[in-house]
């Protein structure tokens, strides 16, 4: 596989691309410089007729766009602050894992099922069961999801949006484990 990266491509973008393409064959990469004011760059990965688009902004990180939408005026559906996490997520998408569940989160963090089980304080089988349910976002307790996200160092927020306003239904605090 060959791809050309412009000489002035920022280091984080180069690093991100190299991490994505490692171990992939048949992957085409297109790199496009954006606006000078924003300093943004566009990276398109093409494989088997599918395009996965990422926008990098120096102050925001890597924005991953919905690969199943070609809508004008779309924004990223996921944002990653570092190249390693972004690259792992893109590899998942390129392999067909479009939805992000606990398994995908765990793999992005580089944490094994056994490690996650130890962090959360449950059996590995429970993590496996939860991962299979969370892939379809059904059949699991919200409290369990909240605990896992917090133990991975994050916080869970659920927002209900209506035309005339929005309401935060849930906002957990950050967990003890820092990423």
């Amino acid at each position: 596989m060959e791809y050309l990266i412009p000489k002035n491509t920022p280091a984080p973008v180069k690093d991100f691309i190299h991490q994505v393409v490692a171990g992939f064959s048949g992957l085409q990469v297109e790199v496009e410089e954006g606006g000078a004011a924003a300093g943004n760059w566009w990276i398109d990965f093409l494989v088997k007729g599918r395009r996965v688009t990422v926008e990098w902004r120096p102050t925001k990180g890597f924005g991953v766009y919905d690969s199943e939408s070609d809508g004008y005026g779309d924004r990223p559906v996921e944002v990653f602050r570092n190249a390693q996490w972004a690259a792992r997520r893109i590899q998942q998408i390129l392999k067909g894992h479009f939805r992000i569940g606990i398994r995908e989160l765990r793999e992005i963090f580089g944490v094994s099922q056994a490690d996650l089980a130890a962090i959360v304080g449950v059996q590995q089988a429970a993590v496996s069961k939860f991962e299979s349910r969370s892939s379809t976002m059904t059949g699991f307790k919200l409290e369990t999801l909240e605990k896992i996200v917090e133990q991975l160092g994050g916080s869970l927020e659920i927002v209900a949006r209506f035309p005339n306003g929005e309401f935060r239904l849930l906002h957990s605090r950050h967990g003890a484990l820092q990423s």
Partner: protein
Amino acid sequence: MDKKERLQKIFEIMASLPCASSAEEAYELLSDTIDGFEDKHSGVPYNPDSWREDGRIYPPQPDSMKFYQGTNIRIYRSKAHRTWVAPNGAIEIRDLSDQICFSKAGSDGRTVNCFLV
């Protein structure tokens, strides 16, 4: 209306409005039309600071503008499109394979394509 339907309506409105006579006017025409329509029909509040998909159509960001190959034609790249704006106020929205999705001439009657030939 879903996003696709709303975008079609936005294009219809853009086509009916007077042509712009400069790149700045053209950008304002595009962004004001999109923002105004989405305020009324998207059901999603305008949130320019968030960089996450929220179901609303957003115009190209002004800071993502670059000039095409040393000319004074402006290009705004977005996920699946490039928005071209010529100095005479002409606008074109093309997909990444350069198929024209929308075109509006500037006030002098020339389209973006006239500048590229």
